[in-house]
């Protein structure tokens, strides 16, 4: 989230598309009902199904799964044609005026530089024209034919309301109504907020869906303002935190990257990171990368990380491929190339696409270790549960160790919510039986490894032997100790950079925040963006002052929000070029002549003059990007791409299947179906009564939604002779499931051009363990392919067939 849950009450229009907030985030959705009650805000829902969110919406429009980009580009096109643009914002705060290389272009659904062999683009043409002065060329009049604005205008011009209707199945009048409602928010005193979740991410072009809306929000001037923003609802309680701390194949904490093996040393690695500003006088915050990086290396390896050994640069693993994400790992596993695998509070057997492949992959492991508070299907993947898990137990040679861990109720620590609030919590109960904290388990594993390397030696033991481990109890580091490491402390006295005599933080003390990080090894901080969460003032994550001056929804003294307790990112964009709020009634921060002040922590140097420094300091341009240069693998603008399994051919290029640059593993390619075998579009989703695969273990939630079902329209039910509550069989090219049928008016077939598209809704939440009745998850059916940029599996749009099942399922 750029903003926060409580900030949503400041909006005039909520657009829920690619998500189902009321269903998946009811308590956050409260702030939508608040905006409606207090500001007379309106709620628009665009979704293939008439969801619980739609049930309280002011306007609902249906859309075909996987066609969001066409809808969003259609909206931008409508805004431009109807002059619903926040011009001052677009000119000054976006890269609309930047001039793009002549070689850049688009045709037949593809951008310049496509190589079908490599399934990749040569992105060199996707960039600005750089002048002799080393800065990007711009034309503030927006008249230059090659400026981003004109390229955008041309790019979206193809997405007429007619094309939207044809591609998305959204009736033209409904699309236009939505466009009008959204258009009103281009006014400086009207804001719109976007709430989205996996409905947008779980596509082979998920990242582009989100860019589409982000661009629309920029055109309307809604980023960085109260009641605006791009608000990813986020799934799990600390998935934000685990990503912040970098628990991903290619990440270091604080969104720094693991080096690739091409980056042979520190200098090479740094050269491509600490970007110089692309415009005179702009702030490019990533220029501080070395400070963050060195402080991280010191946190990992302490004294072993020294200037003379490139801060132990070679202790870090280096990647030969962009990422060893879950899809790649399970593909390797299925090839028999993985020996040991750990699942910490995670249930891949039901969470990853193509369950058949997942089961076969797990069966090829030597050792599977599951750390979980609950009995997961993954830990029991080898156990035969009839049709619900039909495996040949005896033939599975995988050894499985199931370790009982504590739950939230039994440990202390912090979690990061969607709004980046880091909230501390306390243990309330004794762990059941022999259950242990993950910190204890990880320590035990590490200490044993370390001992073995000390006693037996082995290849490159240095990173293990030198890992810092200065904890009171080496067997179980406390949450406090670890939280302090995340914040960082001074390893030597830290002085003011402008005044070397001014001591900022004495050796051994907690650092105030990341402004005190140094690249000379005098500071350590495990995760720079968390710096400030536990400084000498104490544990700021445990702050519980819920006062909210002038009801802005900021709650600055409640817990701690990264970075620097900032509640709304890019908040400088809430004010005009003179530093006055666009909307006085929604003042956030303003320029008082000397500095920025207001209700939030400025997202810019407090003394940076409004007419000099742009609001988007994490970009070397200082501005936001309507044109994303080479940052994304599948194009600087979003362009419509069909799902890999679609009932329709791509209108721009019938030959093109799915995302042309998405990674597809050889064996999975032949498992993609066509609509003549599998005529119906399926989409997966959550139900409000359940959380993922956890609450089926809960007898109350199990009673509220007891048994697996699929949702279909009355039309499809009639066509197939399916009765309400009857049992159906749903199958894709990868698997087959049985379920109860929920026949509803909330799903309607969509008319896409001359094709009538039926949608089948498949909720997750059921498996073969726990209190609820045994059932299946959508992943028995879904294709093994992910987003081109971040590899999020395509769960939201795939093809299936359906028929009434003979004989009831035994539950």
């Amino acid at each position, binding site marked *: 989230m750029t903003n926060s849950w409580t900030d949503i009450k400041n909006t005039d229009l909520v657009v829920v598309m690619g998500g189902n907030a*009321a*269903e998946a985030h*009811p*308590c956050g*959705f*409260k*702030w939508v*009902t*608040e905006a*409606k*009650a*207090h500001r*007379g805000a309106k709620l628009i829902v665009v979704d293939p199904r*008439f969801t*619980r*969110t*739609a*049930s*309280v919406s*002011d306007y*609902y429009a249906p859309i075909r799964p996987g066609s969001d980009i066409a809808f969003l580009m259609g909206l931008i096109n409508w805004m431009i044609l109807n002059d619903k643009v926040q011009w001052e914002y677009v000119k000054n705060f976006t890269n609309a005026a930047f001039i793009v290389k002549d070689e850049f272009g688009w045709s037949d659904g593809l951008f310049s530089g496509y190589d079908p062999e490599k399934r990749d683009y040569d992105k060199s043409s996707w960039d600005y024209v750089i002048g002799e002065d080393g800065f990007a060329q711009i034309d503030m009049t927006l008249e230059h034919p090659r400026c981003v604005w004109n390229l955008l205008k041309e790019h979206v011009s193809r997405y007429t309301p007619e094309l939207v209707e044809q591609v998305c199945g959204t009736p033209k009048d409904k699309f236009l109504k939505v466009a009008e409602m959204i258009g009103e928010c281009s006014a400086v005193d009207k804001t719109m907020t976007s709430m989205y979740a996996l409905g947008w991410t779980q596509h082979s072009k998920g990242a582009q869906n989100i860019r589409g809306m982000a661009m629309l929000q920029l055109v309307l001037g809604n980023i960085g303002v109260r009641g605006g923003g791009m608000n990813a609802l986020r799934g799990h309680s600390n998935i934000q935190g685990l990503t912040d701390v970098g628990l991903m194949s290619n990440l270091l904490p604080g969104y720094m990257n693991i080096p690739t093996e091409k980056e042979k040393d520190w200098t090479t690695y740094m050269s491509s990171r600490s970007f110089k500003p692309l415009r005179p006088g702009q702030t490019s915050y990533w220029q501080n990368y070395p400070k963050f990086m060195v402080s991280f290396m010191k946190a990992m390896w302490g004294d072993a990380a020294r200037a003379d050994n490139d801060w132990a640069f070679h202790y870090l693993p280096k990647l030969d491929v962009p990422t060893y994400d879950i899809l790649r790992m399970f593909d390797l596993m299925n090839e028999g190339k993985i020996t040991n695998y750990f699942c910490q509070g995670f249930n891949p057997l039901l969470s990853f696409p193509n369950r058949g492949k997942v089961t076969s992959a797990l069966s090829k492991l030597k050792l599977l270790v599951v750390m979980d508070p609950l009995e997961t299907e993954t830990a029991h993947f080898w156990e035969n549960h009839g049709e619900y898990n039909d495996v040949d137990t005896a033939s599975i040679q995988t050894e499985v160790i199931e370790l009982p861990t504590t739950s939230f109720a039994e440990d202390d620590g912090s979690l990061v919510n969607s709004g980046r609030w880091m909230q501390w919590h306390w243990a309330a109960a004794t762990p059941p039986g022999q259950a242990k904290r993950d910190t204890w388990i990880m320590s035990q594993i590490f200490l044993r490894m370390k001992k073995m390397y000390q006693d037996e030696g082995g290849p490159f033991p240095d990173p293990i032997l030198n890992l810092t481990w200065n904890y009171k109890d080496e067997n179980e580091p406390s949450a406090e100790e670890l939280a302090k490491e995340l914040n960082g402390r001074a390893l030597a006295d830290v002085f003011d950079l402008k005044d070397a005599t001014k001591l900022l933080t004495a050796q051994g003390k907690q650092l105030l925040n990341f402004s005190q990080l140094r690249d000379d090894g005098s500071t350590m901080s495990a995760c720079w963006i968390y710096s400030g969460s536990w400084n000498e003032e104490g544990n700021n994550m445990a702050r519980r002052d819920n006062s909210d001056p002038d009801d802005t929804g900021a709650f600055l003294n409640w817990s701690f929000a990264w970075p620097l307790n900032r509640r709304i990112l890019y908040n400088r964009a809430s004010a005009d070029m003179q530093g006055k709020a666009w909307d006085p009634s929604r003042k956030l921060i303003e320029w008082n002549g000397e500095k920025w002040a207001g209700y939030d922590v400025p997202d810019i140097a407090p003394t940076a003059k409004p007419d000099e420094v742009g609001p988007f300091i994490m970009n070397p341009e200082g501005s936001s990007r309507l044109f994303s240069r080479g940052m994304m693998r599948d194009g600087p603008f979003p362009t419509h791409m069909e799902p890999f399994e679609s009932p329709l051919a791509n209108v721009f290029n019938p030959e093109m299947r799915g995302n042309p640059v998405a990674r597809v593993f050889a064996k999975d390619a032949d498992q993609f179906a066509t609509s003549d075998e599998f005529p119906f579009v399926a989409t997966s989703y959550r139900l*409000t*009564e359940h959380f993922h695969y956890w609450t089926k273990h809960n*007898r*109350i*939630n*199990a*009673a*509220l*939604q*007891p*048994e*697996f*079902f699929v949702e279909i329209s009355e039309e499809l039910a009639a066509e197939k002779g399916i*009765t*309400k*509550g*009857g049992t159906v069989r749903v199958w894709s090219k990868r698997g087959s499931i049985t379920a*109860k*049928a*929920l*026949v*509803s*008016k*909330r799903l309607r077939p969509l008319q896409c051009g001359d094709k009538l598209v039926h949608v089948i809704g498949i909720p997750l939440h059921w498996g073969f363990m726990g*209190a*609820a*009745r045994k059932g299946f998850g959508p992943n028995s059916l879904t294709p093994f392919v992910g987003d081109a940029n971040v590899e999020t599996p395509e769960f939201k749009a795939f093809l299936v067939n359906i028929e009434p099942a003979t004989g009831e399922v035994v*539950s």
Partner: protein
Amino acid sequence: MTMDPNLDSPRTAVSNPPIQPMKANLGVGDVVRASAMPDLPKPERQLTPVAKLIDVSKCIGCKACQSACAEWNDTVPEIEHNVGMFENPHDLTPDMFTLMRFSEFENPETGNFEWLIRKDGCMHCEDPGCLKACPAPGAIVQYSNGIVDFIHENCIGCGYCITGCPFNIPRVSKTDHKSYKCTLCSDRVAVGQGPACAKACPTQAIVFGAKEDMIEHANMRVADLKSRGYENAGIYDPEGVGGTHVFYVLHHADQPELYSGLPANPQISPVVRGWKGVTKTIGLAIIGAAAVGSILHGLFARANRVSAEEEREAEHLVDRSLPPRDERV
């Protein structure tokens, strides 16, 4: 319970529940009506009438109320099968005091599809039919704040409350044969907390407080709905049962039946009134009269006796039809 004047704020409870032991502020002295106890002493004091307002237009049907209800009341609803509907359990049960009911409605006027979701449960009538029908003294009581509560120690499980209720709410347990329904969390209200469902409700579709304030809040909500094009938005606080302490804001107040058959004009059935009224009193009177009458008649009227004469007549009759005795010796 919230005393927050600005009730449309999302704050349900002004404070978190107390954990220090404290005396319940709701007891014998506050009972205004009790089943089968006609001559009940006047209550010592009058509590502020409370109410739970359910704003159907804000409800997202998430079932948090069901969940919170089960947890607070320590009931464990059965894990049933999916029968092609969203209602789970499929009906109110002795272990599920409240239930979200879902109905799909195509609005003929607007042509729009609407998903109408209503939280069903005890309405806590001002004139409770269950209490009227109940034969067990003190098994159903009504407190002066309007809460209608079942005192299970006194319940005999006859199910008369079911026949008495205009909303089909009470359910008799198959295991302990006692009748159960929403208590409006009388135990929470007694220590100044709102009901568990109201506290949990994510969108504040359920709010709880003094009925007066709730009516005021409801009117604001109705105004908002009208501004959004629901001309027939209104309050459902049925007169037929003297008003209720659980009431609704509906977008289609003119057609309550749309909301999974919410009765348009609920009232205690005349049949039940007849049974519990005239039949009960007159019936007993007649029986009494008959009993007494016959006793008196028995005492004062001459009994119908058989005379010696009649005995002889009988003997003659028998003799005549039989041979003389001597012959038989």
